Every structure is written in structure tokens, then in C-alpha cells.
């Protein structure tokens, strides 16, 4: 009997890849599921644990800023891009002598270099440059790859002005089950988040996917030199739209920790959108007032 148990145990061990042998390299296509739409309305920070400063920062954001030359060719950063709609390619960098995996290199259509080092290197000092992808090192956590990312630039966590600072850090887990890759991101930001932001997305292995290049140079898009579009504190006229859409009373926030939990749903009143009558229709919201060009409004 003991011999049989030992044999079964050996078979099970042999059937499972040992830690550090899961291969994440390949082409992956995103599975659009869960709450992953990422085409938000202005003011829709529901589900994001923004603190008071983070909410104030988001409320001052004006989408016109994206027309500035310095904003036009930006990629999506590490804290956001894994939820994007484009295919993912993960390449692995192998040491030719030891044949150890030294790094993984994930890339999407609109990303920069984002190496994930497994060679034991340390993170750079705080004074070093920051990048959109940050600086990532990883270690195996069983069959999962646990990635620690620092040195990111200030960047959005939702494409409507919800920002994290350049002091944010991200812990990611890659988990592979057959042809499914689960990517979990936990964003910690002491400056703009009251709690960690935990989100996940999934990819399916796809031998036909492509990651095209993203050449981009900035052009003049109509903003006068020196103008930085923004709203004065408390004067963002577009925040009412999201309240109308969700039936959210004026005294309730449109973002922050309390909007992360199911109890928040009780604060919503029926609206044309939540009743399904206005979904996808422009006439479900009040018409926005005309915008003057540039500057604070």
C-alpha cells in the first residue's frame, strides 16, 4: 500500500510542471468579460478607491488635454494596459548558457517596453527615471508568477482622469490554466488611492494574433501653445451626466472606496439608462453646453 501511494504521488508530481516551469510566452487575445468595458463616461469613477485628492484630481480633468502634443502619442501604462482591447504578446528572454528564463517581455499594440526580470536584479534607486511600463521584477509563487512593479509614470487607471501618482506600485500575478491566462493587478498608491485597486482580466491563447507597431508623432490639434485645459475645482459641468445615467443623488460620490462595494447599488435610483431604455442612446443624457476653446472652464 505505501508503495502504491508513493507511486501515485510520483505520477502526480511528474504530471504537474514544477514551479518556475510554467511558460507564459505566446500570443494571447483578451477575453472581454467581467466589468471590463473601459470606455467610461466623464465622472464615472465608480469602483475606483480614489481618495479625496484623487477625486479632486479627476474632477479637474478635461478631456481636451488629450489634444496637447505631449499627450497624443502616449501609450497605456502598466497599471491599465492589461485591460485593453488589443492582443498581447509575451516573449521570453532565455540565457543561452544556463537556459534559464531571464525575463518576460509583454507587449500590446499601444505599449512601450515593459520587461519583467526574473534574473534577481534589484530595482533602481528612487531618483532614477520612470517609464510607462515601470520597472518589474518577478518571482515564482508556486505556479503563479508574482510581479512587483515600481518606477511608473503618473498615469490613468481609467481613461477619464482617474490618476495614480508616480509613487504608485503594482503587484501582479500571472496564472495560466491551459490556454487561459489570468492577469491580476493590485495597484497601491499612497497619494491618490484610499485602498488598493484590485482588478483582473483574462486572455486566451491564440496562434493567429498579431501585435502591430504603433508609430506616432504629435501634430497640432488646435490648442494654443501654453494652454492646459482643466476645470476649476467644483466646476466640472459634465459630472451631472453620470448622475443622470446612474440615478445617483447629488450628495453621493461618483467614485471612491464606498463605490466599490455592493451596498453602493442601494444608493442608485432608477434612470432611463438603468432601466435599459436609454442604453447606447445619446438622448438619454442632457445636452452638454458648448465648450469654449482651451483653458480653464
Amino acid at each position, binding site marked *: 500500500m505505501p508503495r502504491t501511494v508513493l507511486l501515485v504521488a510520483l505520477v502526480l508530481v511528474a504530471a504537474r510542471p514544477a514551479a518556475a516551469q510554467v511558460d507564459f510566452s505566446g500570443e494571447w487575445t483578451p477575453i472581454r468579460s467581467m466589468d471590463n468595458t473601459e470606455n467610461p463616461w466623464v465622472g464615472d469613477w465608480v469602483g475606483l478607491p480614489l481618495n479625496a*485628492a484623487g477625486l479632486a484630481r479627476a474632477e479637474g480633468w478635461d478631456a481636451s488635454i488629450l489634444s496637447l502634443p505631449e499627450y497624443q502619442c502616449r501609450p497605456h501604462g502598466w497599471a491599465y494596459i492589461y485591460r485593453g482591447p488589443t492582443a498581447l504578446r509575451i516573449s521570453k528572454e532565455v540565457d543561452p548558457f544556463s537556459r534559464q528564463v531571464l525575463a518576460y517581455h509583454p507587449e500590446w499594440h499601444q505599449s512601450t*517596453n515593459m520587461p519583467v526580470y526574473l534574473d534577481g536584479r534589484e530595482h533602481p534607486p528612487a531618483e532614477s527615471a520612470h517609464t510607462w511600463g515601470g520597472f518589474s521584477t518577478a518571482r515564482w509563487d508556486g505556479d503563479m508568477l508574482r510581479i512587483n512593479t515600481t518606477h511608473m509614470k503618473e498615469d490613468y487607471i481609467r481613461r477619464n482622469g482617474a490618476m495614480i501618482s508616480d509613487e504608485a506600485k503594482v503587484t501582479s500575478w500571472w496564472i495560466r490554466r491551459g490556454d487561459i491566462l489570468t492577469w491580476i493587478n493590485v495597484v497601491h498608491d499612497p*497619494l491618490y488611492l484610499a485602498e488598493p485597486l484590485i482588478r483582473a482580466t483574462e486572455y486566451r491563447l491564440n496562434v493567429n494574433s498579431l501585435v502591430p507597431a504603433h508609430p506616432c508623432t504629435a501634430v497640432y490639434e488646435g490648442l494654443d501653445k501654453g494652454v492646459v485645459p482643466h476645470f476649476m475645482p467644483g466646476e466640472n459641468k459634465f459630472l451631472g451626466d453620470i448622475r443622470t445615467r446612474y440615478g445617483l443623488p447629488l450628495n453621493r460620490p461618483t467614485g471612491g472606496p464606498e463605490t466599490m462595494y455592493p451596498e453602493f447599488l442601494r444608493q442608485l435610483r432608477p434612470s432611463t439608462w438603468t432601466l435599459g431604455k436609454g442604453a447606447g442612446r445619446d438622448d438619454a443624457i442632457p445636452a452638454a453646453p458648448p465648450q469654449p476653446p482651451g483653458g480653464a472652464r
Partner: protein
Amino acid sequence: MRGLGAFALVALATASLTAQSGPPAPGRVEGAEALRVIPIRGNVFMITGAGGNIAASIGRDGTMLVDTGSTAMAETVLQTVRDLERRVMATGLPPRGCVGVSAGCTWWSSSNFLPSTVAPPAPRPIAAIVNTSASAEHIGGNAVIASAGRTFGVRNLLDRSQLGAWIVAHENVATRLSPKGVPSVPAAALPSEVYFGDEKKLNFFNGEAVVVTHIPRAHSDGDSVVHFRGSDVLAAGDFVNMAHYPVIDVERGGSIQGVVDGANKLLDITVVEHMMEGGTMIVPGHGRLIDTADLAYYRDMVTIMRDRVRELRRRGMSLEQIQRAGITRDYDPRFGRDATWTPARFIEAIFRTLPTGS
């Protein structure tokens, strides 16, 4: 991959150059634990921890420093620079890529083998210091470091004197350091070469053009930016501050509009490598190394703060009312943490320097 390569190189080089834990190694610089040397590109390095940030170009022509840190850290900075000079000159690779004939390539520059088989050349002297302003955290080491340097010129031949390193600055720096004609710092700390107007070209140094550009009425009225054009590194001084809100020295002619204009001027100069990342690197007066995208965020912040104060003043609010209005609360976690240069003082500096009627 160039961006990745550069980043990895920075990380590796930084690891080898930063202070190590454990007992002091032979020749280790006393007190150097506080300093950090960040290789940027080519011959150019950033030294942090000595007060204001310092940029250093080190190579076959000698050493050029942009600012010298605080007085208290002067000896430590000098020894750190000396140590860095020895490391750079002893490297098996030429400090700069040797492409073409105009970069001053010599026969040994193309060989990685020879420098490893013979003693490395001795470091060249500290030849020049450029001050980006008259602030104590940027000129404090002038006297000690300039005296340890050497300028070569006719006078060396005529009287066999040992002139210290040049100290280059805008003329307003010299004026501010000698109010009413009386120097407020040791004579050896005063600029020895001043310029007026928009810029001063320092010719080629360590194989690249070095251009000093005046930024009018920003942190002060004597601000300069130093552009190492080959390495494409800008040493900006205090009107670019990644540690806290920019200090606007109103008594020395600083203004919020100058800070905004200066940031936009730098954005005109910088070029990104790819997707708004890398390319021209900027050494701020304080805080971490930045690139164009970081500078754009900074430009946004100072512009938005100017706009808010201007708008509330236009609506008839007093300085005290504006200071209590909470208009900096979205940026305070990042830039409002300095105990002395508080958000209220920043607002006051904006308020006092906004053009009348704006």
C-alpha cells in the same frame, strides 16, 4: 529595444556606482552614503543628495559640473566626483560612442582591449562649473570644488598660476550674490564668467556641444538651463522641481509666469524617443530624473495652479481667501509635502507675481 537597453544600462550602472552596505571599502568616500550617482547617457551623470541636484559631464576633456550642492556637502561631492572620474576613465569602453571622425575619435578609442591592458589615463581636472541660479543648495560647493579644479589659459603661462575651475552663470547670479557690491559668499564661490542675454555657448566639451540658456524670471531672475546636446540631457535647475512645488524666489526676481514659460520652453527643446518616453532627459533642481512626459505633467501642474489663482483673484478673492480655498488639494500629496515651502507659500508667490490685470 533601445529604450529598454538604456534603462537596463542605467540600472546596472547605478547598482555599481551607488553606495554599498557593509564596512567601508578602501578609498571609499566618507559621507558618500547620502549621495547617489545616476548615469544618464553618454558622459553625463546626475548626483543627488547634496542639496540641489548636480549634473556632471566627465570625460577626456575633464569634468564640468552643473551646480555644486550645499556648502556642508562640498567635500563629499568633490570626493564623489573624483571617484566617478577614476571609474569613468578606467572603463574599458570609451565613455562616448566613437562614430565618424568629427567626434574626436583617437586610435585607441576604437579598441576595448588596450585600455584593459595598460593603466587608464589619469582623470582630467574639473574645468568648469555652471550655476543654474544663486540658490544656496546649488552654489554651496562652489568655493571648495572650483579651487580643486583648474582652468587652462594664457595666464597659466604668464604667471604660472593655478587658476581654479571656471564658474559660469547668468550675470544676475553674480549681482544677487553681491548685493550692493559686497559679496555674500567667499570670493572663490563667485561666478568668474558671467553672461547676459539669452544664451552662452560653451563650445564642445567631452565631445559634445554645451549650451547655457537663460530662463527669465522663473525661480529667480538668474536661472540657466544647461543642454548637453550630444547626450541630450538638460540640467534645468530649480524652476523644475520634482520634490515639491517650485520655489519662486520673489525677492530675487522669480515669477510664476517665468516658471510656466520656462517649462514650455524646455518642452520645445525636448524630443521623445518613442511613444512619449525617453529621449531628452532632464535633471530637475530637486527630485528624480525626468523626461518629456514627466515635464509635461509638471508644466500642467504649474499652469493649472497659475490659472486657478488668477481666476479666483479675478473674481475678487483676497490672498488669504485663495489660500483657504483648497485649490491645491489635488496636487498637495505629490508636491505639497515640504515643511518650509508649503502650498500656502506657493500660492502667495503666484499671487504676488501674477501680472497686474491678468
